[in-house]
């Protein structure tokens, strides 16, 4: 299958995502921010970085890029869109996902391993996992604290849209001991139609044992399996 990887000025996970995609045996095409053509991508990755410098709010400028118009159309047509780190921030700014990502509660940048509990398997990204599986995936961000109003948080939980929660190494609840102070320990969420995933941790940095974990590779495999089962467009899952 073909992963399209967005490149905004200031994006730096693009090369790592390409590496992970190719390691998984798939094709990676780079999507330049000024272009509109998604080049037949089966899944579009919005990678990490500091798009346009992120001198305003993170992701606030990138959402206006010409490429994003196509990404939004693609998402509306049930195409798979996967935002990692800065990509998650962009998805929230573009209103493809609810809520926002604010400065870490420590007020410091954090680069560290984290453990994520899979909260839903009802997405193309987590379909091959079991609910409760714990994945070791590192974070690297200064603005990764997921916030939303109580009503939205309740809705996300009610609709089974929390994809990942930060947990302790042994899988027990983090209870706020997270790298960024996210509300309800949320590390990743999906949209209502479950084809758009945003997550702060970097699965592309966890695809080889040599890098400390290969758990991230499971997510790339899940996406590929879902596409090969359903053709180019994944079926919107029933919530």
């Amino acid at each position, binding site marked *: 299958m073909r992963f399209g990887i967005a490149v905004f*000025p*200031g994006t*730096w*996970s693009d*090369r*790592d995502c390409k*590496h*992970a995609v190719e390691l998984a045996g798939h094709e990676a095409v780079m999507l330049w921010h000024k272009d509109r053509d998604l080049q037949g991508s089966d899944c579009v990755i919005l990678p*990490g*970085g*500091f798009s*346009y*410098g*992120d*001198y305003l709010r993170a992701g606030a400028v990138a959402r206006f890029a010409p490429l994003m118009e196509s990404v939004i159309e693609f998402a509306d047509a049930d195409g798979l869109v996967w935002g990692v780190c800065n990509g998650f921030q962009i998805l929230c700014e573009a209103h493809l996902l609810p809520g926002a990502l604010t400065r870490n509660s420590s007020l*410091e*940048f*954090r*680069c*560290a391993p984290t453990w994520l509990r899979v909260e839903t398997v009802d997405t193309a990204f987590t379909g091959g996992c079991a609910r409760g599986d714990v994945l070791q995936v*590192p974070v*690297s961000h*200064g603005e990764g604290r997921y916030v939303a109003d109580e009503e939205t948080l309740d809705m996300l939980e009610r609709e089974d849209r929390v994809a990942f929660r930060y947990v302790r190494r042994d899988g027990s609840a983090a209870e706020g001991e997270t790298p960024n102070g996210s509300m309800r320990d949320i590390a990743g969420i999906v949209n209502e139609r479950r084809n758009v995933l945003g997550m702060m941790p*970097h699965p*592309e*940095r966890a*695809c*080889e044992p*040599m*890098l*400390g974990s290969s758990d991230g590779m499971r997510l790339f495999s899940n996406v590929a399996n879902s596409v090969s089962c359903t053709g180019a467009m994944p079926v919107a899952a029933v919530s």
Partner: protein
Amino acid sequence: MTSVEIVVASDADLAEVALTRAEYVHLVDSLGREPNRLELGIVGALWSEHCSYKTSKPLLGTLPTKGPRVLQGPGENAGAIDIGHGLACVFKIESHNHPSAIEPYQGAATGVGGILRDIFTMGARPIALLDSLRFGPLDEPHQRHLFDGVVAGIGGYGNCIGVPTVGGELYFDESYRTNCLVNAMCVGIVEQGKLTRATASGPGNLVLLVGADTGRDGIHGASFASVVLDAGSAARRPAVQVGNPFLEKCLMEACLELAGDPRVVAMQDLGAAGLCGSTAELAHRGGCGIEVDVARASRRETGMTPYEVMLSESQERMLIVAKPEDVRSLQAVFERWDLHSDVVAVILPEQRFVVRDGTDQVCDLPLDLLVDGAPLRGAPGPPPDRPKPAVADAAAAPSWTPDEALLALLGSPNLGSRKGVYRRYDHQVGDATVILPGGDAAMVRVDGTTLGLALATDGNSRYTALDARHGAMIAVCEAARNVVATGAKPAAVTNCLNFANPEHADVWWNLYDAIDGISAACTALDIPVVSGNVSLYNDTGGTGIDPTVVIGMVGVINDVAGRCTAGFRDEGDVVGLVGPVAAELDGSEYQRIAVGVNAGSPPHLDIDLERRVHAFVIEAIEADLLHSAHDCAEGGLAIAIAESCLLGDIGASVEIDELGDAKGLINGAAGILFGESQSRFVISFAREALVRLHELAGRHSVPLRGLGSVGGERVCVTQCIDVSLADVRCAHEGALIERE
């Protein structure tokens, strides 16, 4: 020449450009006329210590700079070595001390930005950053402010641009109270055929200025970095530049697209002394001249004079030399990255440095005089008599038990965990960091190969303060040991020499001795020096820093899968010590903390033993005999064992024969537990490897002994130390946390 005032320089004029009267007289004699104000400023910048190396140049010639791997030695933007597979590793370390002392965040950030440019100017993609930092005592609020600001600045720049910060070191010492040190090292990779040089050629070729617009920031930065700081230094904050890592990321990607492109004749970044420094050096290297038209440079603000445009140190700017017919197509590459470019200069056949402001010629200087003409400075006096070092009064030590001493040392700012620092740096972007920060050297793998690069910086100024030559030798050995502990073979060195005011004879002779020490150690260990930087005048109000030699070391391992780490691994493994046991407390961290002095002679160094120990450890790792290897450094044997326990999250029990009946620290145990004898590694290995390791040690004539075993949840030294790993971790991780 029109519209420019010719001056007979007053003392105040000379002070502004940091030239001495004698240098000025030399300038006038050589020119055969008085310079105008712009020329005076340009000469001041190019003749500053920072640009001209007028003090250190006569001394640096003794460094060994050649070797089979060396592709580019000192003289370019960075050094380069052959790492095989047709690839070059390009690296350099550079100081940004003076700006960081005034404005820690931007000073450190632009230090990172500057060293990154040095690497990608050569066509190499930066793959790792390291930072060597020195501050005054951390319990003082101003030092905490500097430390926090510098760490934030390094992270702010490196995290945004997406180059991992994988290592470095951090020391606190009274000698840095008024002059903190910020040395940044960058390592990059390029195909050898794409190595780009900063040597202009081809009269008539044009010079593009790419990237940021030119503003009034950083004017006189080079001169500022070449004088002592004083009470008025805070007022020089405008001489500190402001960084824009996003712009540099775009500039970097655009320049890397052009690496190896035949349309690029030369590439040179703008650093110290801005447009005048970069254009002059570019032309001088190529044996030609250059004519700059300041009117063509895009400005950030209106009303800037030619003087300000030439001397501005605005960041994120680059010069590209190209044939006139290629300019338009090169500009298109930059435009794709939304980068602006102006044709600001033309290469001249004769070696002149000409500046125009539109139709007015405002400067015309012989290029040789400008770049190479600064009168070199010799020794300001004969070597001073050095008093025999005082001997520390051991009885002054507190009545700690060995347990208490271990925890006090591990919890001290110099030996405590650096996690609170490196977790603020993205150390994993690039998917290449295979040994994370926290151990000896970090390691990054090289894309498309099995190669790994082990990277470390090191330099203990307590040793150089006691004996500059000997301390410098140890700095080289220590940095090499960090690399060797991973299984990599030391390949080349970059150095940063941080010293006080060299116009004082003792400082000058310390510099002389330190360079001699680096030469001696690098020669003996067969490690060439390929790049470096000298930072002098780290002196405020007559108080200078201790001589500080920072060695940046690059080691190469052929198969990254065979790398070794510093943490103990398996229960039941043997803990071993490679190297001698001697009770040497002089210059140690124990002496600092327990006795409160730095006295005596630094630990003995047998450079031949050092070399053999390296060969032994590398061979043992290659033969897959070791489960861990850790350099035994500050804090000595007991600290090294505790660190290997922490890194492996497992305890150990050892017995040290020399402790004998020495109960209590004053009766000799301190020297054995915490003395910093050189040429040592703490290793661990499976019991079955014991015989082969002893054979190997015999073959290399290296002392090796078993000390005990890995296991449990305590750190134990028989009849001496018995502490839980949890307590050890608590002390270690709390070392840098601010106490109310």
